[in-house]
């Protein structure tokens, strides 16, 4: 299958292309030098970018479905019947799997990673990913409260920890190492939490500091494509920026094994809080941005808040309990044996609330204060800060100080008083938008054929109906928001799948996972420990734990030979 996208204004900053009028040639699902006899689509006057890459979004798995099940009131806010092409859909902050695929694709996204995969529930996550059409997919395997990891690290058996992590990634068909409130979710097994990097995890001879450092060391020894993906301790707590800064400090001793960061600070907004009570709750985005600016080992994603009713969900059980006790709203908790502790509770970000206003400002401050767009990724931690389909609004805010001012004026005065957003006049250009919505994500994940349009890249392309030459996004931010809400064309794997904001073809993407090889003898030894843990402490047999290939759509293993022996 061949295709030419003609005459669009192309933004491909990874290859130094910034708004040049160019043709994009596609053959057999890849970007090529040139094709002849291909179908041509006129893209003149339009903005052309690589397909969007989502790096952190809760779109599939146990807690996402618990949220759907707990919130029937969410679903009828957004419904559409079956068409000749698409399935019926419903859902707002907890969209159905089909809607998730269609909605991302309509915004020009072609790849999405689900934020947290608890190993025991991996099969569930993959069943849902299987039912998310339109996108290439992956999942981040949670390890920050894993008993075997904690044991190996506390005993200083780093090679064993590496081999176990590699096995776990393979068994769960996971793509990267994720850690959520390291040590805290284990403490939640007793209704407790950890509140500093040096708190001891109850009954385990280890601290959050040692877990985080250990996971980074595992990650670099295995030389995995992505870095450790960290949701630090104390999410959402007043004054938590000190914990965050201390955590970021830990990257100083870690040598990257690849050309990338060693830590992704995820949903950074939720970790950049100052003040010592909700009364003087304030932004510390400047401190966090400073730490990121001064290091070449850190990247962050925003975790932007957008006002409205949403559902929070995270493998940070104590945090969800704490939040639901603040709001009094319904609360779901789902501790998972030996591994993690997810929770879910609804939340409303209100323009009238001083706290919500400051939260809104912090996300944008982070994106605007971190100098290099290569270190920033646009996320809402869907649906924690807001549902993912609010991205076009956030793009408009990033590109227009005026649009930010308009919101700021409506908010509780704390949002002006306790943040610096009002004084920032930086406005993103189109290239920067390209970085923070696809290119930085692909780089962070180590996806060499995504996030750019160079020869050999996947033919995943988004064409937006807006003219970057003649549009002034600072003034015409509403047009920007409209354009990013629905593509003129989304091309996935070389096929047109969305045209003028409507899904015209349903495709099923690849599932990416990491297969990291370690020494055979070491692996045998580790499997003995794994076997013991399954016989004694798990409630399923080891043979029934790994996810079979039948659950994955077009599985693609990213093979890594780690050298760990």
């Amino acid at each position, binding site marked *: 299958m061949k295709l030419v996208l003609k005459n669009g204004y192309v933004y491909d900053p990874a290859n130094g292309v910034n708004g040049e009028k160019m043709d994009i040639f596609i053959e057999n699902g890849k970007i090529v030098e040139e094709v002849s006899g291909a179908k041509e689509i006129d893209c003149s006057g339009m903005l052309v970018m690589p397909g969007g890459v989502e790096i952190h979004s809760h779109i*599939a798995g146990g807690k996402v479905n618990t949220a759907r099940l*707990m*919130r029937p009131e969410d679903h009828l806010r957004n419904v559409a019947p*079956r068409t000749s092409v698409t399935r019926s859909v419903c859902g707002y902050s907890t969209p159905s799997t089909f809607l998730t695929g269609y909605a991302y694709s309509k915004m020009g996204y072609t790849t999405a990673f689900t934020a947290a995969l608890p190993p025991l529930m991996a099969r*569930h996550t993959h069943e849902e990913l299987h039912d998310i059409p339109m996108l290439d997919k992956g999942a981040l395997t949670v390890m920050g409260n894993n008993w075997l990891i904690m044991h190996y690290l506390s005993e200083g058996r780093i090679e064993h920890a590496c081999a176990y992590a590699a096995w776990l990634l393979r068994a769960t068909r996971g793509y990267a190492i994720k850690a959520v409130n390291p040590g805290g979710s284990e403490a939640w097994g007793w209704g407790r939490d950890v509140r500093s990097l040096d708190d001891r995890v109850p009954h385990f001879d280890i601290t959050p500091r040692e877990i985080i450092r250990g996971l980074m060391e595992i990650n670099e020894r295995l030389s995995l494509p992505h870095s450790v993906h960290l949701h630090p301790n104390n999410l959402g707590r007043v004054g938590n920026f000190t914990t965050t800064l201390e955590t970021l400090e830990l990257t100083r001793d870690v040598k990257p094994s690849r050309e990338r960061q060693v830590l992704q600070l995820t949903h950074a907004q939720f970790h950049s809080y100052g003040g010592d009570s909700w009364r003087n709750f304030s932004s510390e985005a400047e401190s966090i941005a400073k730490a990121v600016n001064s290091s070449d080992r850190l990247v962050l994603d925003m975790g932007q808040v957008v006002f409205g009713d949403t559902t929070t969900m995270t493998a940070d059980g104590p945090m969800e*309990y704490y939040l639901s006790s603040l709001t009094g709203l319904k609360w779901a908790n789902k*501790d998972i044996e030996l591994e993690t502790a997810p929770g879910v509770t609804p939340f409303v970000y209100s323009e009238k609330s001083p706290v919500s206003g400051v939260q809104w400002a912090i996300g944008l401050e982070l994106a605007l204060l971190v100098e290099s767009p290569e270190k920033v990724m646009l996320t809402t931690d869907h649906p924690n800060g807001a549902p993912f389909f609010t991205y076009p609004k956030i793009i408009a805010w990033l590109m227009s100080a005026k649009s930010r001012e308009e919101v700021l004026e409506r908010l509780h005065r704390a949002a002006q008083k306790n943040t610096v957003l009002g004084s920032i006049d930086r406005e993103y250009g189109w290239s920067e938008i390209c970085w923070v919505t696809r290119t930085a994500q692909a780089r962070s994940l180590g996806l060499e054929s995504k996030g750019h349009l160079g020869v050999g890249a996947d033919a995943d392309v988004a064409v937006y109906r807006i003219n970057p030459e003649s549009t002034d996004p600072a003034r015409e931010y509403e047009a920007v928001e409209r354009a990013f809400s629905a593509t003129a064309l989304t091309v996935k794997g070389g096929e047109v799948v969305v045209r003028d904001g409507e899904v015209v073809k349903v495709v099923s993407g690849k599932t990416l996972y990491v297969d990291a090889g370690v020494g055979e003898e070491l692996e045998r030894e580790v499997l003995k420990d794994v076997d013991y843990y399954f016989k004694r402490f798990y*409630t399923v047999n080891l043979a029934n734990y790994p996810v079979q290939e039948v659950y994955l759509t077009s599985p693609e293993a990213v093979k890594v030979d780690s050298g760990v022996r």
Partner: protein
Amino acid sequence: MRVTHRDVVCSFCGTLCDDIEVDVEDGRIAEVRHACRIGTTKFLSASRHEHRLLKPMVRENGRLKEVSLEEAVERAAEILAGARRPLLYGWSSTSCEAQSVGIELAEVLGGVIDNTSTVCHGPTTIAVHEAGFISCTLGEVKNRADLVIYWGANPMHAHPRHLSRYSIYPRGYFRERGHQDRTLVVVDVRRTDTARLAQKFVRVQPGRDYELISALRAVVNGRKLPTDEVAGVSREDIEELAEMMKSCSFGVLFFGMGLTQSPGRHRNIDNAICLVRDLNTHTKFVIMPMRGHYNVVGFSEVLSWQAGFPFAVDFSKGYAWYNPGETTANDVLQRGECDAMLVVASDPVSNFPKPSVENMLRMPIVAIDVHPTPTTMVADVVIPAAIAGIEVEGTAYRMDVVPLRLRKVVEPPEGVLSDVEVLQRILERVKEIKG
């Protein structure tokens, strides 16, 4: 030749034991180890084909007549595609893969799809909408729980290995001495076989569970009871139980249909979830329903991720509409709305209330099942299916929502397909008819 299959998942109840060993000799199941008596019987009966449906049948002139699979599929598709408001019911004793095809079929037909939770733990789901859900996987109970309560549930009969695998008897990481490190409490209207094992048995008067839960909440939250007795339980017993709950280090409340299907229904569960939430201000406490059919949970999961709602979904608007009491199977049946039914892996003729069954008998029924039931006897189209978890692979969700891969240990009877394949054929044909 004898072949032993290990780590087999038992597709009977929501306990979903996955340590079963099955010996197969000459293509038949010869011996089953580790399973309970119910599970063992299910495995062994698979190979006794005299108990099975083996040929597709279509009713002609009042009698079921053997036909080819193609004819049966054609007739089934005609009935369903020709119906104004078909009801697709059952689903809890088959794989997620079959459920998934069933959901698309319901969507294409604009029908109503519901599963057996409508008559078991549907009230639990409704309570979750109201109050949330504070739970865990069963390994958390095994490793941590020092207080285990069964309320309105009798696992010694309904989930025979529940106590030995998960709750009371296993040695856990923090409960090295197994049952000696735990306290078992049973609340029920009669002294069941589970109650006989308990350190404390609380006999509640039938239909008054809600009051007892409320009394416990009052005491847990520091109030004095104004009466000497609530729901037939003395103040001392209530205070003692409340103190046990507050002072344990990890407590779990398992509840069964004694709580969901007695007066109060979803209100009972709502109140019980709130009790557990109250307890979490004192200690760690979780709650879990004792789900019956081995994949009743799977249906709610698949339907939730595909259509947003856990059961009783009406696609007549083209998209999913959910309103228990309106879109639940018995309500649709008793209002006389529905004019055809597809029943998969279930026997509503035996289990539904009489007014529902009377209406069922007035409409054409398509039944897909592994063995004859009163429902297949009155059906107009009967299509045999292979047994998921014995003759075909698939996915099932345990009562704590842990998903497992069902294994295949023997071939299905000759010519018998999985219900997934049968449903796919019906779906394809229905799509053609509907254009």
